[in-house]
Every structure is written in structure tokens, then in C-alpha cells.
């Protein structure tokens, strides 16, 4: 399927939203919960899968659904299409303070790997897939980073970074160690591994900052200063009456077992 070329505009400073302009017949996909406004002519449909051409056949759809279930994503994607005769806009808002990162997939080689809760919206035709890290250490130690979301295509995609965004370009062989929760997205050319640094006991009980993601160039990485899990932790800790549960950013199987998507 050909990508829809979308024009966009990002508004705000710390609490941003992105407005996407759709020509008649064009469409964008997004998380239903992220939609902020739709101009006249835009229609919203919930579809099974992600609306890209890749999920051919019933089996493909089931497979896609299974993967999405596994990662705790919603089974359905919302597609916003312009049925009117004029250009129309739809806006998606960031769920918490941070920056919206526009990524033209053509400039990164057609694929972007991102943290599973960072996707905001994309041009129709961008496929939302799941990528499994094949390194056993990643699977055992870090829930986060083991299963990531894979955006494929050659259109625009928008991801959200919590707090302040840091973009780093790594030269071939250059290594950067980051907290697993702080990774927003990276090019697939970047070697990604989870390293366990600390005592297992403390990992089980606090889960804080004991797993590092080792990112090795070449390629571009997008980092966030305030992961949602860290923010949530502080809020829960400050409100014990709420009875919330502490979520470790890199605790054992933490990312596999939690499900913060509605």
C-alpha cells in the first residue's frame, strides 16, 4: 500500500499535541485514546490490526492479533480518514509531559524500533509490528526491551518521549549505556542489549536502575528523561492511599507482565 504523505504541525512546549493534515482520501492511524480533535470530514473507524497491507488473510490477522495480545496492546487500531472534499486536520495529544518526536521513516531506512507505549500516530500504510530481541539476556532480565514495537514503512510516524527528549547519533562502534526505561526509539542498525548491573536481590525488591540498555552504533537513538514508569512510581509513592503498585522500570519480567494500556 502506498503511504499517505501527511503534513503536520506540532503545538505546545511541554504538553504537546500534533496536528496532522489529511488530503481527501488520506488517512492516519493512531491510538484511539490519543485523539484530541477532528475537523469536519474526518471519520474514525476501528479496524482489526493496523490497517497496513501486510496482514493478509485470516491467519495473518490472527497472528497479528496474537502478537498484540502478547504485548498488552489493544487488538484494534483506530484509523482516521478524510472523507470530505477539502483538506482536514486531526490532532493527537501527548499523554503526559514530554515531546512529540516526528520521524520520517525514509530517513532511517524504513524501520524504527520503539518502546511499546511510545507510539502516538502515523500515516496510513505504516505497519505496526512487534519485534522480539533475540538475545537471551534481554528476555530473562528486562521485560522492557525484550518486546518492542516495530514501525515499518516510508511515511511519517510520531512517537512520544516523556520529559525532555535527547537524540543521539552513534558512530559505528560507539557505545551508550542508558536506563532501560529511558529508551524511546532507535534505528534497527543500533545493537541493543540489556545488561544487568547490580544484585539480583535488589532487582527483585526495587527494580530501580539495575538494568542498563547498551546501545552500540551506528545509528540514531531517541531517549526520554522521564519514563512513564518512573513518573507513575513517584506519584504512587506520594499517594499511598491510592493503593497503587510500584512498577519497576527494569524489574524481572516487569515489562512482560504489566499492562498499562487501558
Amino acid at each position, binding site marked *: 500500500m502506498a503511504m499517505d504523505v501527511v503534513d503536520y504541525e506540532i503545538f505546545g512546549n511541554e504538553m504537546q499535541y500534533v496536528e496532522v493534515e489529511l488530503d481527501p482520501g488520506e488517512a492516519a492511524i493512531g491510538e484511539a485514546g490519543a485523539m484530541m480533535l477532528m475537523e469536519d470530514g474526518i471519520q474514525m473507524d476501528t479496524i482489526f490490526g493496523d490497517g497496513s497491507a501486510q496482514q493478509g488473510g485470516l491467519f495473518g490477522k490472527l497472528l497479528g492479533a496474537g502478537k498484540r495480545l502478547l504485548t498488552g496492546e489493544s487488538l484494534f487500531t483506530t484509523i482516521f480518514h478524510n472523507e470530505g472534499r477539502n483538506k482536514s486536520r486531526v490532532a493527537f495529544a501527548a499523554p503526559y509531559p514530554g515531546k512529540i518526536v516526528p520521524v520520517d521513516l525514509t*530517513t532511517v*531506512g524504513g524501520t524504527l524500533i520503539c518502546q511499546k507505549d511510545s507510539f502516538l500516530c502515523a500515516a496510513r500504510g505504516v505497519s505496526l509490528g512487534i519485534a522480539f530481541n533475540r538475545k537471551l539476556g534481554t528476555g530473562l532480565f528486562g521485560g522492557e526491551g525484550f518486546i518492542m514495537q516495530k514501525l515499518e514503512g516510508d511515511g511519517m510516524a510520531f512517537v512520544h518521549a516523556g520529559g525532555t527528549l535527547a537524540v543521539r547519533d552513534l558512530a559505528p562502534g560507539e557505545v551508550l549505556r542508558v536506563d532501560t526505561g529511558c529508551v524511546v526509539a532507535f534505528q534497527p542498525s543500533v545493537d541493543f542489549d540489556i545488561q544487568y548491573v547490580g544484585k539480583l536481590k535488589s532487582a527483585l525488591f526495587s527494580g530501580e536502575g539495575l538494568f542498563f540498555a547498551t546501545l552500540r552504533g551506528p545509528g540514531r537513538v531517541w531517549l526520554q528523561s522521564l519514563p512513564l514508569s518512573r513518573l507513575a512510581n513517584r506519584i504512587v509513592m506520594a499517594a499511598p492511599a491510592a493503593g497503587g503498585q510500584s512498577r519497576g522500570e527494569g524489574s524481572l519480567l516487569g515489562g512482560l507482565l504489566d499492562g498499562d494500556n487501558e
Partner: protein
Amino acid sequence: MQARLFGPGLPAAGQACEWQTDSGRIQWAGGETRLPSTGGALRSAGFDLAGLELSWADDAGRWALQVLAAADATTLRATPPAGWEEAFAQLAGTTRRHRKGRALGWSALALFLAAPLLLLAGFFAFSDGIAGWIAQRVPQAQEEALGEASFRAMQASLKLRDEGEAARAVREIGSRLTQGSAYRYRFHVVEDKAINAFAMPGGIVVVHSGLINATRTPEELAGVLAHEVQHIELRHSLKGLIKQAGLSAVWALATGDVGGALAGEAAQRMMSLSFSRDAEREADNAGFEALLRAGIDPAGMPAFFDTLAKQAGSAPELLSTHPASEARRDALAGRLSSVTNRRFEPLPYRPWPPAP
């Protein structure tokens, strides 16, 4: 081949390029370079590690050429560029090892989670074969402990008659039939009118007085003993017990805990354990050979079937636990007719049956 090049002067996110794998020429809009044939490094690349990265350094800095499309990487692995053959071979080796390790890790986890289910399912699906397989691997000491525990559990309900002429005859014939066996046999006579005899794992044979009284010659008794002994030698009792008591028996045998509940259960089953036709035929044949080796007339074996057939009233217990048939009798008679030297010294116990 479509590839992506990273290096000095190129966009940080990489430059899409066309790589001529045979000549090593790498071209893109606005430039070109060449893949060196020496001094490069190779690694798996991409989030799912399906791709390849070839990297090298020159005066300008480090370069990395990536092929992430799985199909292209496969092509490349089949025909490595000139000078890179050894690096590709090495990578293939480590990848195989890693894949093996990973597969091992995942299978171990899966096995751990599924083991109880698999064991249970396997046990029901192949109970015969598995029971036999396990029975062959139970150490003799465990087998003896199991038999001993079962015997003790049922002893209270047995009226042992281990003194007297009949018991002496049973012991003596028994020891002749078990010369050279790995088991230490014990033969017991029990006062019970029912015509029956049974064998317990590890070497305990119990004969009812009713059976002794039903035999017309000591050779007929020898025939029965020879048959029972072979159920032990061939581990039929153990196998049957494992099959019937199932996992609890396997567990007890594996852990060596053969006391308590299992012994009671085993004792109960032992008396009603019925063997398959195959097991009966096996015990008949091996028993027949044992009689010949011991110099006891094997004619007593088929003869006892005739004796049983002449018994008035309902079928003896022995037949319900050791399925008998015309076929068994005929097979034994046929075997007997092929024995050339039929001069056997008669067993000395006369008159038969001995007085209780």
C-alpha cells in the same frame, strides 16, 4: 544489493546505498567507496539479529555497512564477499552455538512448565512401554524393598505355614529352580483353600495350601513354582505394579520411599494383579527351561492344567490372576514332545500331597 552505509561525512542515520557484492563497490547519490578485503569486522545486526554488519576503519574514521533485510543477509551468507570468507564462517559458528544455547534455555523453561503434564499424558499413552522401561531400570535393592514392604503389609492377613513337609518341599524345589539367580528367593506357604500362588517383586513367592493340595504330583507344584519364579525374574510383577499404581509407584521408587501407603496399595494389588497373555507365555517358556535345567520333569507343567480343569466348582483364583487357556496347555505339551531326553529323577516327596 541494497544496503545502508554509516561513516564519516554521511548522515548520522545512515545513507542508503547500492553495493556491488562481487566488485565491492558501494555507491550512493553523491559518492562512492569500496569494501576492503582485509581488516574488517563482521557481526549480526538488526533488533532481531537477522541482518549483517560489515565494519572497517580507514584514515577518515569507522565505517559500517549494514544489510538488514533477512533475504539479502541470507544471500550474503551463502556467498561472502572476497576476503570475508573466514569472518562469515566464524560468525556462522557462533550463531549456531548461540542459537543452540538459546533454544536450550527456552526448551528448559518450557519443559519445566510442561513436565508434569507431559509425564501424565505420556504415562497414559504409553503405559505398557513406559512401565516396562521403568521396571527395567529400578535397582534390585529397590525392588526387594518394595516386595518386602508389600509382604509385611499383607502378612497380618496371611496364615503362614512355614513349618512342615509341604513348606519344606516348596523351599527345596524353589531353591533348585532359582540356582544362580541374582535375587535372594523366599518361599512361603499360606493356609488358604483358594488355589492360588503369587510372586512379589524382589524374590518372594507365596503358595496357598489349597494349591499344594490340588496338585497330584510334586512335579506339578514345581511347574507352578517355576512359572511364578519367572514372573519375578522377568520383572512382570514390578511392571504390572508400576502400570497399575502409576505415578505414585514411580515416585516412590524414584525417591526410595516404598513404605507406608504404597506398600499397602502394592500388597493389595499384588494379590489381584493379573498378567497379560504375553507375560504368561513368557513365564511358561522360561519356567519350562528352568525345570529342564534343574533336572525336574517339565511334564508337571502341562499336567497341572489338566488338574485344574478337573477341579469341581468355580474357576480357581489362579486362573483369574494368571489367564490360562487351551493354547497355553497345548504350547507346553508341544514343547514337552520336543524334549528328547525324558529321563528325569522323580522328586522325592511321597506320598503327595504331604499331610498338612
